[in-house]
């Protein structure tokens, strides 16, 4: 394929200068759409992170003393097995607890370094038959006074409520994001169509003198892909800001989660994912527009 990068740059800048409003409008729509989708994912990651211990219907946790004897631990285990109101339970030993702790605080070295596996409390994660909060409280009370038990924590209604709220937020974000994504697709499609129309004479001449199909197509495709790429890359500050906002909400406002924030690595992954999605949108929309309006 005989294509010069310099030519491509010139074609692109010509195209953008010809109708900057269309280019910017499309770019901003892609940006907002991807910010919503990415923002939803950030919330999900943050909540997953904060409620890691409370997943899979775990309603209360019996934390043992780090020094609890094997006999004391076995006693609790048997007592749980014997209770018909308890559907299942899962024992998390010191090592597993330490790993989980390290994972939750993976972005905060200071917190990570102050504990060792030896100091971690082993615990039972308990799923009752009936997740009703009164029943759960009653069940939890049965274990508070047992030997070797350090603390019993129940998933109070608020945690579930917050999970529900964040699920709704997530849902709204995803729906709005997808709707905007559709409109972004259509905008890219129309941008490319307009560009093809504006340059039909050149395309005609190119075909006439024997320019290869790819030579003719690449500038149009590049325009769509560029919009998607820029739209995706520009989501970074928005996603960052959103994550910071969440962490402050977790720290000050709700106080329930000490760490409502998506881990940095996950956030970067979401950002890269959104950028890839933007590129994909641009490529798909321009390919469809080309196949419909560019007869080569």
């Amino acid at each position: 394929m005989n294509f010069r990068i310099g030519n491509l740059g010139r074609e692109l800048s010509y195209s953008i200068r010809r109708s900057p409003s269309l280019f910017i409008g499309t770019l901003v729509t892609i940006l907002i759409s991807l910010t919503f989708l990415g923002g939803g994912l950030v919330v999900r990651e943050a909540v997953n992170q904060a409620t890691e211990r409370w997943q899979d219907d775990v309603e209360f946790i019996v934390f043992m003393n780090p020094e609890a004897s094997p006999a004391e631990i076995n006693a609790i285990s048997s007592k749980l097995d014997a209770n018909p109101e308890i559907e299942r339970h899962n024992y998390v030993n010191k090592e597993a607890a330490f790993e989980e702790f390290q994972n939750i605080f993976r972005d905060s070295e200071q917190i990570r370094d102050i504990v060792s596996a030896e100091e971690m409390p082993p615990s039972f994660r308990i799923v009752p038959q009936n997740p009703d909060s009164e029943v759960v409280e009653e069940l939890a009370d049965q274990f508070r006074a047992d030997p070797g038990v350090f603390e019993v924590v129940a998933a109070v209604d608020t945690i579930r409520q917050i999970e529900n709220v964040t699920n709704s937020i997530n849902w709204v974000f995803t729906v709005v994001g997808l709707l905007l994504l559709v409109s972004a697709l259509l905008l890219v499609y129309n941008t490319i169509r307009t560009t093809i129309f504006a340059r039909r004479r050149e395309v005609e001449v190119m075909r006439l003198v024997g320019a290869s199909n790819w030579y003719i197509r690449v500038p149009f495709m590049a325009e769509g892909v560029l919009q998607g790429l820029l739209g995706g890359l520009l989501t970074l500050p928005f996603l960052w800001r959103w994550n910071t906002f969440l962490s402050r909400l977790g720290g000050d406002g709700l106080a329930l989660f000490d760490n409502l924030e998506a881990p940095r690595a996950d956030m970067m992954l979401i950002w890269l994912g959104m950028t890839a999605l933007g590129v994909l949108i641009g490529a798909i929309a321009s390919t469809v527009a080309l196949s419909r309006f560019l007869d080569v």
Partner: protein
Amino acid sequence: MIKLENVSKIYKGDVAALRNITCEIQKGEFVFLVGPSGSGKSTFMRLLNKEENPDSGIVYVAGKDIGRLSGWRVPFLRRNIGAIFQDFKLLDNRTVSQNVAFALEVIGRPRHVISTQVPAILELVGLSKKADNYPEELSGGEQQRVSIARAFVNRPLILLADEPTGNLDPATSVGIMKLLDRINKTGTTVVMATHDRGIVDHMRKRVIELDHGHLARDQARGVYE
């Protein structure tokens, strides 16, 4: 150079553009394609650079059956076929030399080749002094010379001219015909569709006449009618 074997082309609604045409054009020939509007002249030309495909029959260009040419090879066929039109098809936002250079750029010719070939071809068509003018600053005849320069700069084997003098006055047309004749003398096969009786009668070249898609006449050193 060009051979059609039992070529037919029928458009939607049973409009026959070409019916069972068989003819052969040798390398270096100059051929006039005449006939009333709708007789199939343009279709004939469009089949040669594969802008259209026949419904039946075989079209050979430079010894190859172009019906069997895969899509990505069509541009390479077209690099061997220059084409000019009644409406010139110049790019208004480019100067004369940029218009000509465009044809070389888009097929990936290196810059140093472009910078030597463009002035040479403009010299040939007599437009060296207008190299930096825009098409709208030129007369119709001059614009057609630019389009001939663009079609010929890549030294094609064949030059297709679809009513090249259709928009020009008789005096200007004579100049264009002289230019096409010169190009023909370099060995390029020229096929020209025209309505211009005066030109055909004056040049006394081979004439192929089409009538409602039929080949009505094929005459060496012929006249318009």
